[in-house]
């Protein structure tokens, strides 16, 4: 009920609260820096360390694959951090301050209220990754030569899915409590739990972390796939949202 109206408000809030700007700037910055770091790390080591010359002889010359690996490492680490920070107060803060009660006493559905929050943040991350991806592709092209554009688009899509898992789960945590600090703590716990599970043999193949493994393989030109991990990630996104809606619809405000 009134999803469009709720989404419009959320999108305006993304703009006015600088959430979009911050996310776009941080991720684009890493999109720009990653190829530069990959390209110039051997030079930095050579110039900065006393035995740098010898060490750099042991390192293979940097390539586009290193640039992609650097990009994925930075974007996923800071992306997850941003997902947690941006989503942890989305519902908890509105419940605590009373704005949720004011708006939800009107003909605005609770599920629409929640889904609009997810969609606006998903849009923020999509735009930010488009910018970061364009920046990363351009600098990789300049510094290392051409890359497979299809693979680049595919790996960025996988990064987006990976980050949306954390947006969805953090939104679920934010629905559970009135405190955004507690919501942030819960979401951090979920992040750590998923990271630990991802390291376990067998179970790790299904972990959202393996979606980034797939993205890395795409960047390296490998045909390796991780469909179970992608499936589970999509299930976590949908499940997180469904759980948040089910809980929120039963809550008193």
């Amino acid at each position, binding site marked *: 009920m009134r999803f469009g109206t709720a989404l419009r408000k959320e999108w305006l809030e993304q703009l006015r609260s600088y959430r979009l700007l911050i996310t776009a700037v941080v991720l684009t910055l890493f999109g720009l820096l990653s190829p530069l770091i990959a390209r110039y790390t051997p030079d930095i080591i050579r110039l900065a360390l006393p035995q740098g010359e010898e060490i750099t002889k042991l390192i293979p010359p940097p390539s586009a694959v290193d640039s992609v690996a650097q990009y994925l490492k930075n974007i996923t680490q800071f992306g997850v951090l941003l997902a947690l920070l941006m989503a942890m107060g989305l519902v908890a803060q509105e419940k605590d301050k009373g704005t949720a009660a004011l708006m939800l006493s*009107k003909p605005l559905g609770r599920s629409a209220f929640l889904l609009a929050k997810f969609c606006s943040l998903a849009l923020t991350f999509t735009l930010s990754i488009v910018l970061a991806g364009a920046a990363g592709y351009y600098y990789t092209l300049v510094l290392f030569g051409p890359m497979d554009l299809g693979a680049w688009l595919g790996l960025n899509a996988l990064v987006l899915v990976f980050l949306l898992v954390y947006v969805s789960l953090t939104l679920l945590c934010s629905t559970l409590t009135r405190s955004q600090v507690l919501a942030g703590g819960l979401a951090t716990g979920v992040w750590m739990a998923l990271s630990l599970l991802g390291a376990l043999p067998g179970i790790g193949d299904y972990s959202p972390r393996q979606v980034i493994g797939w993205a890395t393989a795409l960047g390296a030109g490998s045909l390796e796939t991780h469909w179970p991990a992608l499936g589970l990630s999509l299930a976590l996104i949908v499940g997180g949202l469904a759980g948040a809606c089910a809980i929120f619809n039963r809550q008193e405000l």
Partner: protein
Amino acid sequence: MTAVRIEGLRKTFGRVKALDGLSLAVEAGSVFGFLGPNGAGKTTAIRILTGLARAHGGQAWLDGIEVTSRGGRRAASRLGYLPQDPAFYPWMTAAELLDHVGRVFGLSAGERRSRTAELLKLSGLEEAARRRVGGFSGGMKQRLGIAQALVNRPPILLLDEPVSSLDPFGRKELLDLIEGLRGQCTVFMSTHILADVERVCDTVGIIDRGRLVVQSPKKELLEKYAAPVFEAAADRGQEKALKAWVEGLIMSPPPWLNSAALTEELTARLLVNDLEAAKRELPHLLVRSSLVLTRYEMVRPSLEDVFLKLVKEGGGRT
């Protein structure tokens, strides 16, 4: 026609019974004062009516729609609601907030524009229309709160302590506004400020410990329940003596006395339950007290006297 109907509403928080079988009915077009001391259950009842909280028993209807059932959300479009401490998105301007609320109610662009302008004028926020709500004072937020509650021209307006954070000037303005809504919509207003209820409400319901103590048209309530009141005003410099005299009465009350209290105007206010005995004995008591008086009279009882009497008795069911 009944606009608000509540039957046997129950709600508990742990062991505390916030609502203990509350029942009442409010006629359409009236300004209903929902009175009660702090913690009586007023806000809980209003939150159930808005669908923000669930009842543990009983039923409630708004405009014939049962809000305590699954389909209760349908009533939201017929409702205007001002919470006790209205909170808004601080990054929105006042005009944007009213426009957003208009969108939630499905108003067209033209309707939203005209309604926003109309309500900004009505709430005295025309000059602050383009200012962000985050910088508003408490009074301005309260006025914006009433404006947003009126966006959909609601048949039923639920106001939870609407004037509690306003200065006397803002309070008067808001009460005038509420008074102006009489006949246009049903106003259900919770408060513990009796003077405000006495001024604007035509029907009063008194709630205590989650139960309705009494519900009646204000005039009938005053006639039926208000025992006579005597006031004795003392001269300046008599503060201590007057206080001691009132305390003495409270400590060992004569049988005809219901309650005694000191007002801010150096006046003792005595609620009596036996008018003839009080008329006979009170002047003697005053003479014996040697107080220097400037006034002694029997006055019209106020709603406050009725409220205190009924809540003190904890009974008086209709």
